[in-house]
């Protein structure tokens, strides 16, 4: 109770302060809004909230989360891309940020935003996905999966978080690299995709380590292979695609962006702030609790990372093309 009262008093004071110091020069002189383009409770949200709290401590200014979900993240991404470039509006985006403009191109849609409207600030976390199968499927290794699929072409099925979604891209990478055909059952999100697999309605799916761990431990899912560049620390026995002879890598990452026209001096303050924030022990503790591995990269490296990822994924989208009849 006290805590909430304190928070609201704080919020009112912040609102007053924000009006008072609007004309001030040094950044940040007022509250910062961090847009999360997904609903609360998602990966972006549980990464964004600890980051915001840690940044609050660094900047001595409130950093509030604003959830702007919709259209697979496009609405929130576009909101920041078109926001006033003053550093007071930031974006906690997921890797899907690079896929959405590609899909828009594919369907001749007016793009909601383009990647060059956003300036990368820092990568916060990255996690590879893992191929899991239903335990009733008689396969234990990638070779067996491929052999089974060759024997019954088009019979095996997989569920994803949606067409061109974060779990569809890695599956298409794999199927294209191994020249396989499978039935695709898209769903409305990572949770439903996992539910379909647990119920045995599909045979396999790509899953994030945080989502699958408890089911793997309970024997309800069997991990086969990971898209990571190296083995996952919690899944030491699961080989990577690279080890198995397929050069495919895929991570789901979360990173901070600002509108591209944000002044260099402001970006610098933000970069320094994030660097301090990710080393905050409380931040590390929170991220560990939600099973989100911290994978910090500063702006120059992050920009390269985003470019490489965008190129890779654009290629996949082109290969997939328009699905359906």
């Amino acid at each position, binding site marked *: 109770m006290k805590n909430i009262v304190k928070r*609201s008093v704080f*919020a*009112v004071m912040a*609102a007053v302060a*924000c*009006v008072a110091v*609007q004309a001030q020069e040094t950044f940040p002189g007022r509250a910062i*809004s961090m847009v999360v383009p997904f609903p609360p409770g998602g990966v972006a949200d549980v990464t964004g909230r600890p980051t915001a709290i840690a940044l609050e401590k660094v900047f001595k200014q409130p950093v*509030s989360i*604003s959830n702007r979900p919709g259209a697979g993240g496009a609405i929130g991404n576009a909101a920041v891309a078109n926001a006033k470039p003053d550093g007071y509006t930031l974006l906690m985006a997921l890797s899907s940020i690079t896929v959405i403009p590609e899909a828009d191109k594919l369907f001749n849609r007016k793009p909601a935003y383009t990647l060059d409207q956003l300036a990368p600030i820092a990568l916060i976390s990255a996690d590879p996905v893992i191929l899991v199968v239903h335990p009733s499927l008689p396969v234990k290794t990638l070779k067996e999966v491929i052999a089974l699929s060759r024997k019954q072409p088009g019979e095996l099925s997989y569920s994803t978080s949606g067409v061109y979604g974060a779990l569809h891209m890695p599956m298409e990478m794999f199927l294209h690299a191994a020249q396989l055909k499978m039935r695709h059952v898209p769903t409305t999100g990572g949770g439903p995709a996992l539910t379909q697999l647990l119920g045995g309605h599909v045979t396999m799916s790509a899953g994030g380590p945080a989502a699958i761990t408890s089911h793997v431990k309970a024997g309800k899912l069997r991990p086969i292979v990971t898209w990571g560049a190296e083995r996952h620390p919690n899944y030491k026995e699961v080989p990577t695609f690279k080890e198995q002879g397929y050069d495919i890598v895929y991570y789901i990452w979360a990173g901070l962006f600002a509108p591209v026209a944000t002044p260099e001096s402001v970006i610098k303050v933000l970069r320094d702030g994030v660097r301090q924030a990710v080393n905050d022990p409380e931040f590390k503790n929170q991220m560990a609790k939600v099973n989100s591995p911290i994978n910090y990269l500063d702006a120059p490296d992050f920009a390269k990372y985003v470019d490489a990822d965008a190129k890779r994924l654009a290629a996949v989208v082109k290969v997939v093309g328009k699905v*359906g*009849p």
Partner: protein
Amino acid sequence: MIEAKDADVQVKGGLRSDQISGVVLIAIALVVVWFNREFPVGTLADPGPGYVPLLLACTLGGIGLLVAVMGARSQSLADTAWPEATRALIIMGACVAATFALERIGYRLTTAAFLVFFLGVIERKHPLTVVMVSAGFSLASFYVIGVLLKVPLPRGPWGF
């Protein structure tokens, strides 16, 4: 059933309300079919994005046709009274204006102006009450929803 009696009295002449609404349903169906043409329909075994909308539009068109044909005995359109239409239009107009203003001049100003319009201009209440209710409502709702519940309500260019 007042309308039933009316319908019996005026068996001849005039457009019927169901005939109009049926035709409008058919028109909606046609519009949907028109916009649906850019989506692949697919087959029964592999329905594409255009399949279900096309199916629904055809159903709607069929139902619209039935409504129109069977509505020959329904209430005459001329008998449909629209006593509240003017007031309804004014209300809709005010709402449209308020929605348009919401993200331009901010929540509190919009709501206050909206209430002043209704209470002062439409309902002609005492000016003091109008001011108190309008200001009180907009500030209190902003405090509860915007500050306590942290919904980011729009602020105007003056930070208000």
